[in-house]
């Protein structure tokens, strides 16, 4: 399966096993979803009214899902593109994600919002708006980069009792095929080590994972051994896996496609600094776009998003730096080294 097929399969399987799951979105019926995001589902669930073509009304699509979820459904909203998330922040993030806290789980909001993002064949709609999402407590944010993760994490997202934003990278959706074990469960909030290594830790998500992987291959030829961590979910963030890695390698490079301010990179840093009580034993570098809107012209867009070369250069630079300390000098629990 491709990532796209895996997501559709996960939704179909969930709808088969749980009839409180329904899918609502624009053009998801006979049109089969933008970029085939619901391919094959119309035949299976259309006649039963569980696949609903929505009018352009993002706030109400997500708002109605919050209401349905509170009443007992497990809705999935196909929002088309992540930039439309900005239209839904009150019902989804300010309120929907606060319900469990405000009611001490007396009422919960189990819903999934799917949204495509990132540069890709579609051209346009590249914004992930992810920093904005990360600011709201109570939301979960998932970004799969392999068919297996896509399948397992979508099943987990549908099962989850919190609102989950499921971000689908447009450059990866119809990429490489892989076998998917539908019985394998993956917990939201666990990162994955895509490539073990000893010299520099690279943390990435989405397209940056596949670019970092290729950068790592090129760097291996130069004798630099990269450890690549795919965060898989941005909230909750699996900081302990990242921390363990950087305490070993002594050097961290964060590769991000989204805006550099108040986003994943800033948050990873903040959580790491907190986790080591202000005494990092590692250096930190960034490969990020500038803090500007995403440009449209193909060359400008390509220059905006970190390339394989950009990542490789940042890793080389990090490798050339003296790591502050290596694992031997990691501060002991509860005190400075």
């Amino acid at each position: 399966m491709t990532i796209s097929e895996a997501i559709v399969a996960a939704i179909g399987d969930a709808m088969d096993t749980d009839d409180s799951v329904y899918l609502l979105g624009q053009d998801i019926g006979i049109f089969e979803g933008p970029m085939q995001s619901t391919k094959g589902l119309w035949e299976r669930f259309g006649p039963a009214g569980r696949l609903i073509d929505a009018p352009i009304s993002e706030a109400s699509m997500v708002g109605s899902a919050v209401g349905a979820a509170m009443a007992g459904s497990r809705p999935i909203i196909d929002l088309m593109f992540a930039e439309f998330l900005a239209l839904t922040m009150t019902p989804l993030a300010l309120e929907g994600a606060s319900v469990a806290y405000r009611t001490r789980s007396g009422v919960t909001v189990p819903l999934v919002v799917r949204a495509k993002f990132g540069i890709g064949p579609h051209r346009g709609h590249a914004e992930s708006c992810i920093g904005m999402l990360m600011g709201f407590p109570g939301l979960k944010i998932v970004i799969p980069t392999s068919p297996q993760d896509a399948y397992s994490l979508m099943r987990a997202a549908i099962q989850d009792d919190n609102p989950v934003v499921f971000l689908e990278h447009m450059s990866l959706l119809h990429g490489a095929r892989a076998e998917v074990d539908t019985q394998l469960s993956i917990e939201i909030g666990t990162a994955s080590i895509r490539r073990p290594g000893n010299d520099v830790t690279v943390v990435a998500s989405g397209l940056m994972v596949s670019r970092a992987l290729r950068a790592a291959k090129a760097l291996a030829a130069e004798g630099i051994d990269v450890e690549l961590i795919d965060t898989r979910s941005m909230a909750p963030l699996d900081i302990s896996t990242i921390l363990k890695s950087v305490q070993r390698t002594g050097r961290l490079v964060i590769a991000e496609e989204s805006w550099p301010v108040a986003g994943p990179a800033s948050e990873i840093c903040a959580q790491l600094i907190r986790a080591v009580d202000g005494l990092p034993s590692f250096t930190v570098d960034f490969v990020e776009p500038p803090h500007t809107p995403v440009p449209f012209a193909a060359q400008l867009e390509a220059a905006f998003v970190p390339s394989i070369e950009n990542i490789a250069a940042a890793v080389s630079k990090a490798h050339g730096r003296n790591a502050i300390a290596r694992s031997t000098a990691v501060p002991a629990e509860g005190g400075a080294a």
Partner: protein
Amino acid sequence: MSFDHGTPEGRMNLWRAMVRGRAFDQAMCRHNNHWHEARGEEAVFIGGFAQLEADDIVAPHFRGACAVSLMRGSDPAELAAGVFGTDGSNSGGNWRGDICPTPSERFIGMFSGSLGTTVAYATGAALHLQQRHLKNVAVCAFGDGTANAGIVAESMNLASMLKLPLVFICQNNQYATSLPATTAIAGGTVSDRAKALGLEVVDVDGNDLEAVISARATAVARAREGGGPTLIHALTYRMGGHYMNDPETYRTRDEVAAWEKLDPITRFEQKLIVAGELGADEAASETLSLMAEMNDIVAAAKDAPPTENLVLNPSAYAEDWRIAS
């Protein structure tokens, strides 16, 4: 409890629900200077939400939400604790009870200070009922000011397109804080807008309890039968200010006095008295005793100690609260 206005018992219960609701509201006005008074609008929210089934889902407008909650069986002491956010509240102080009671699966509240979203939540609740092939309905109310929010129009369109089992009630008290509805609702009325979106629409005198009840009964029956959503546009008046410290510079005393003559409780009470179902003295004494009772309950809630667990749990995720509570 029966709220069937076709029976003497139901009529008494309706009258009592209005009086109790006002008693709670007025006690809040006395003890809480952040309160948003609902006096004068009782016919809309009592008539609009009475006689529903326990499994019907309600999403009242914030103004009057406590009266709806009381009518549906809430304990006034717990409700009052929720308003002040003290230990007796069922949210442990995490919920902003001064705008709406803590929600449940069948009661949608206001999850932040933002108006309009509850209309979408009620729409989704109705979609849930339709998806599950249940015979229940959702009823939601919102103000004339809230009617201008984009999400309200989006939700009405979605509800109309999907023929959802839903009743919208516009509780038109004629002002959004200071802006008159006649100015703000450009291009006609909320009814005109709803008609354009394909809804069944009915305009009622929002100070006439029975008119609201019969409009609501028709709309609910229609929704239960799969006939789709209705908008009930109920014209009423907010007799108090927007909130307790409102200087009320945007309206005249004469205007307020004219509407005071149309007080929905007095109107309904007079009918019951004329019909011989309620004695004038009985009405007066029961009103006084309900006022005193609610005043005591609210005063006690106000004096209750603050929540002890200041931050019980640093996570906002559902699973972490299950462990904590």
